[in-house]
């Protein structure tokens, strides 16, 4: 009798415990779902920020065509990433086109869940995670496109940019993420490659892809004088540019948070993308002090230039992102300071020595500092165990990642833009560039109530000059139109 009663009580208790466990699991999943949902919301600010940043840096005649690039990035990269980008991430961890899902190191079953026709890619009441996890990566993809976007403004065709950003956002960066920014990626499991918050895999790769495009795109008309010295175009609204950067910084907190994984019934606490333990507080400390160090470095390296001071903040954070889960805040402060200095120097070198017209310094800030950040992990976080195989981070592993990413990033950007150039689909006609892209694309001036003044340009000597004769002269000197530009109503 007593035994029977005890058994009955035990069965009831076991049933209650099972129900509680199920409820706890569901709550944990919904908590993770909610967390990623809000990181995505915050990351939208990155794109609002990039739009404001680039539109402000554009001359008045190009403001809407510049902003429209950022908006249509969302229209184009979202479906391309859904239809094949996510599958690349899930199935190419072991390289391409090797079957990543067959590898014992790859996450079991993940590949099959990333096809657009899979149960995880559609509405599924049993799956609270796949959708928001996909969205977080989608927002990273938009970011790669936006990084490239600013460098190319005022002369690239909108459609050429969209084709290139689909390639970058839905194939190039996500393939390197599969290799080196996943728990089962071959760079992670074999070499301990460590890039926790994507210094290299997002920023470095997008910057290097952009470099390949810039080589084929060429500078804006009038950017360089006949001696090859750089002039400076004055953006129509620097306040808007700085506001845009501040929005990007705000969005970065969402970006950082989305790079971590949390689900209490699976992991005992926060883990990074490689499933190594960390905390949200640790990376939030690093990003905040990274901005402080970056602003400081940018200010001093640029001698107080507002644009480079804020870009220095971005560069500083990018330089410490790869090791953000490991660095002590003081170390992050020092390294971000150095990252901003590197960005300012690299920006001047790219503009003045390489004579590449990167309108917003994207290659320096994202490309150079992204790979700089990856290198810093090899120096300052060597020995840290990375990933499910606990392979120690090392300079060799970091260099292996860089050697894999440089051709992966640069070559597609270079050859895809070269192909578009050969087809005469890369750059707007020179006459349209002189007049401004907004008139050709949208047939209107977007500040109709404001009188326009003659365009100004800053000479290599720092003098502010009337831009029109300079631009017309540059047009005439080039091999552009058969009819000299001066032949017209005013000549």
């Amino acid at each position, binding site marked *: 009798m007593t035994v029977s009663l005890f058994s009955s009580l035990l069965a009831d208790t076991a049933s209650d415990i099972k129900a509680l466990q199920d409820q706890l699991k569901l709550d944990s999943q919904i908590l993770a779902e909610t967390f990623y949902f809000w990181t995505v919301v915050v990351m939208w600010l990155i794109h609002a920020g990039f739009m404001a940043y680039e539109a402000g840096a554009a001359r008045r005649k190009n403001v809407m065509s510049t902003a429209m690039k950022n908006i249509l990035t969302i229209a*184009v990269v979202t*479906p391309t990433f859904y239809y094949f980008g996510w599958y690349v991430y899930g199935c190419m961890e072991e390289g391409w086109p090797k079957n990543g899902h067959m590898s014992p190191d790859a996450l079991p079953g993940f590949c099959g869940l990333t096809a657009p026709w899979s149960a995880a890619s559609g*509405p599924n009441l049993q799956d609270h995670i796949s959708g928001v996890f996909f969205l977080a990566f989608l927002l990273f993809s938009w970011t790669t496109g936006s990084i490239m976007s600013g460098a190319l403004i005022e002369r690239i065709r909108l*459609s050429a940019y*969209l084709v290139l950003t689909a390639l970058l956002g839905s194939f190039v960066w996500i393939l390197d993420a599969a290799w080196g920014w996943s728990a089962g990626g071959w760079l992670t499991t074999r070499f301990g490659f460590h890039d926790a918050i994507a210094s290299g895999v997002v920023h470095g790769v997008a910057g290097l892809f952009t470099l390949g495009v810039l080589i084929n795109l060429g500078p804006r008309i009038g950017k360089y004088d006949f001696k090859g010295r750089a002039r400076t175009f004055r953006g129509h609204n620097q306040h808007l540019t700085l506001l845009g950067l501040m929005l990007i910084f705000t969005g970065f907190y969402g970006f950082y948070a989305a790079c971590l994984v949390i689900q209490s019934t699976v992991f005992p606490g926060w883990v990074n993308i490689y499933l190594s333990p960390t905390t949200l507080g640790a990376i939030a400390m690093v990003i905040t002090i990274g901005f402080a160090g970056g602003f400081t470095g940018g200010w001093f390296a640029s001698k107080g230039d507002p644009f480079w001071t804020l870009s220095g903040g971005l560069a500083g954070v990018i330089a410490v992102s790869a090791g953000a889960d490991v660095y002590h805040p003081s170390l992050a402060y020092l390294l971000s300071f150095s990252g901003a200095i590197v960005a300012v120097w690299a920006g001047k070198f790219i503009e003045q020595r390489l004579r590449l017209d990167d309108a917003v310094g994207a290659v320096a800030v994202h490309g150079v500092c992204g790979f700089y950040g990856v290198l810093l992990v090899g120096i300052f976080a060597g020995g840290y165990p990375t990933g499910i195989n606990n392979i120690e981070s090392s300079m060799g592993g970091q260099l292996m990642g860089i050697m894999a990413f440089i051709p992966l990033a640069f070559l597609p950007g270079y050859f895809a833009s070269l192909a578009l150039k050969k087809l005469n689909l890369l750059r707007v006609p020179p006459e*349209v560039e002189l007049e401004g892209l907004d008139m050709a694309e949208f047939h209107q001036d977007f500040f109709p109530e404001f*009188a326009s003044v003659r365009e100004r340009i800053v000479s290599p000597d720092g003098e502010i000059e009337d831009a029109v004769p300079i631009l017309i002269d540059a047009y005439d000197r080039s091999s552009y*139109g058969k009819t000299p530009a001066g032949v*017209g109503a005013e000549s």
Partner: protein
Amino acid sequence: MFDAFPYDAWGPEVADFWAWGGANSTGTYLVTALGLLLMVASLVGFVRQETGRLNDQQARLLREGILTHMRPSAPTTPTTPTSE
């Protein structure tokens, strides 16, 4: 509370409806294919539409003279109602 709400029983029916017959089904393959088609067509459309616009504008600028279009413009005069 959950006992009074047949969430589990409704779940599969709702999921099947939402997913057009579920994962790896003909319906899902079909909408995926249509979506891919729209994706490619929109990219081609962006290129073709912009090429037409740019060519037209370039031809107009060459015909009318570029300098005409680089002169400063006056602000658009707003239409103000006249008081009677």
